[in-house]
């Protein structure tokens, strides 16, 4: 095989594993692993959306968890008001995320560098406090979603396997979309802006407009993850928007390999499995996880994908 590389093989193996997981769960009777991986896939979707702006667009958003909350609250609030249909809930979740992304993107993109990191964080914190103030929808305590989104017989979200495959399909769909975007003219412009904004502007591209569109697409994708997450946990609370959650998403992206197509999935799988695994060994799992992150930053440039790439070259 001419194009064989270690990273490609690892990616293929991981994707095959994700597709076949429900089979394993069924055969072994291990229901927990299916629940765990549903969560992993949803957060991988969120990480992939963050990677679109962070890895390809060079926009370091430290407030990406806000979309998880907005998507989740759209589902939760509509469910509470008696609108149970997923055909309404999901479009509303996506639209709300897109509008939020459009507004904060238009304001945030005036700044750059660390200031951009901080202003996106500030907006996410505002969203967090707005959600905490929603007394009608649980405020600080959060909102229980009693009925999952109803897709009128098309797919039953309460069935574990069906829900798992829905999430997986969404993830693959988003990855496909990102792949198409990155290789399109639009995607090339956005990546060009990451490398040299001045030069791109000199050629005549309206930098901010391209970046804003990219920002909105990413936010909308993450809103989808939020809507799925609320269905998965049957619950949504301001805590999903807290800044440490945005940090988690960043960690997944960087861990997996920023600016690679499948890196964020790899990062989410490894990060969340590690968290699960370490927390089973010791209550003090973060004591190991923290320094591990430090070591990965110090020695593992380019994340897991980068390391696999180097291993492939030998």
């Amino acid at each position, binding site marked *: 095989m001419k194009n064989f590389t270690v990273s490609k093989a690892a990616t293929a193996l991981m994707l095959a594993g994700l597709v076949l997981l429900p089979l394993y769960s069924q055969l072994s009777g291990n229901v927990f692993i299916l629940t765990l991986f549903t969560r992993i896939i949803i957060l991988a979707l969120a990480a992939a959306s963050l990677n679109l702006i962070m890895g390809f667009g060079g926009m370091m958003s430290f407030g990406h968890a806000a979309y998880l909350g907005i998507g989740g609250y759209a589902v939760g609030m509509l469910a509470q008001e008696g609108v149970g249909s997923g055909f309404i809930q999901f479009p509303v979740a996506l639209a709300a995320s897109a509008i939020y992304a459009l507004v904060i993107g238009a304001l945030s993109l*005036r700044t750059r560098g660390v200031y951009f990191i901080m202003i996106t964080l500030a907006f996410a914190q505002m969203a967090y406090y707005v959600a905490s103030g929603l007394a009608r929808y649980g405020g600080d305590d959060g909102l229980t979603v009693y009925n999952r989104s109803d897709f009128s017989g098309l797919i039953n979200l309460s069935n574990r396997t069906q829900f798992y495959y829905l999430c997986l399909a969404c993830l693959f769909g988003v990855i496909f979309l990102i792949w198409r975007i990155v290789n399109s003219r639009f995607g090339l412009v956005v990546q060009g802006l990451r490398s040299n904004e001045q030069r791109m502007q000199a050629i005549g591209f309206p930098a901010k407009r391209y970046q804003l569109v990219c920002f909105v697409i990413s936010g909308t994708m993450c809103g989808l993850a939020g809507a799925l997450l609320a269905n998965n946990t049957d619950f949504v609370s301001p805590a999903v928007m807290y800044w440490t959650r945005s940090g988690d998403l960043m960690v997944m992206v960087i861990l997996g390999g920023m600016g690679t197509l499948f890196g964020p999935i790899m990062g989410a799988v490894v990060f969340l499995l590690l968290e699960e695994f370490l927390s089973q060994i010791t209550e003090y799992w*973060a004591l190991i996880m*923290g*320094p591990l*992150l*430090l070591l990965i*930053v110090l020695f593992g440039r380019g994340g897991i994908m980068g390391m696999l790439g180097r291993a492939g070259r030998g």
Partner: protein
Amino acid sequence: MLLVVEQFLNGLQFGLLLFLLAAGLTLVFGIMDLVNLAHGSLYMMGAYFAATFAAWTGSFLLGALMALGATLVLGIVLEMSALRHLYGRDHLDHVLATFGLILFFNEAVRLIWGPAGLALPLPAWLTVPVPILPGIHYPAYRLAIIAVALLVALLLYLGVMRTRIGMLIRAGASNREMIGALGINIKLLYTLVFGLGAALAGLAGLMQAPILTVQIGMGENILILAFVIIVIGGIGSIRGAFLAAIFVGMIDTLGRAFLPNLLRQVLSGAAASTAAPALSSMLIYLLMAIVLVVRPEGLFPANRR
């Protein structure tokens, strides 16, 4: 009137405390170009050290002094062992690595001191109310915080503006490569600045400890506030950090105190009492967003090019 004066002083005290935290952060940020999310952990460690040492020695002041030394040493060790290797790397690497440090510190504290919070009792002479205006009393301890923080701010100003080391620090903030090229031991300077920042964070933590409970995660919320301040003030600018800190402290405190009543004039009682806490928590973020939209580099950018 009484409430206004009291809340005004509370705002000043909170703002000065935030300044101590933000000063260290902005120095490290401005000079080493390091985004240190773990700065809040040093604040937390200052509080834990103070509570522990004060219990050991039986003296609040002695405990506070020892805690100050301990955070200084901790900061220097941290810089030499881990953070030194991050200089010159991407900001994202800083965020990830110091995010890991937060996890580590929170868990280490849980392991050593347990999940329950600690209390740091004040000595009797600091708990008496002091008359500041005819008929208006204010807690002595909060006045002491204001005095100490103002003193530290003054010393910091004199130190940075009038001493040789301060000159090097300012030179480092405006051009890092140049002062290295001029033969300054830049490694030592960096370690020193980081230690100073850590000690300032520790001081803020140990002074805040008697007012709030000493608990895990106490550093995270206030860290975000400190970041908001240095972003508003302009990264690397101590003067900017000072003004922004006072500003943010005032707005946050006064907002929390008076916003509910103001809202009640406009909205119905129930709506106002639910909206007020969220709105007053949002105020400073709103302020920061406005500042960044109008002045994308903060109010007092340190190194204009």
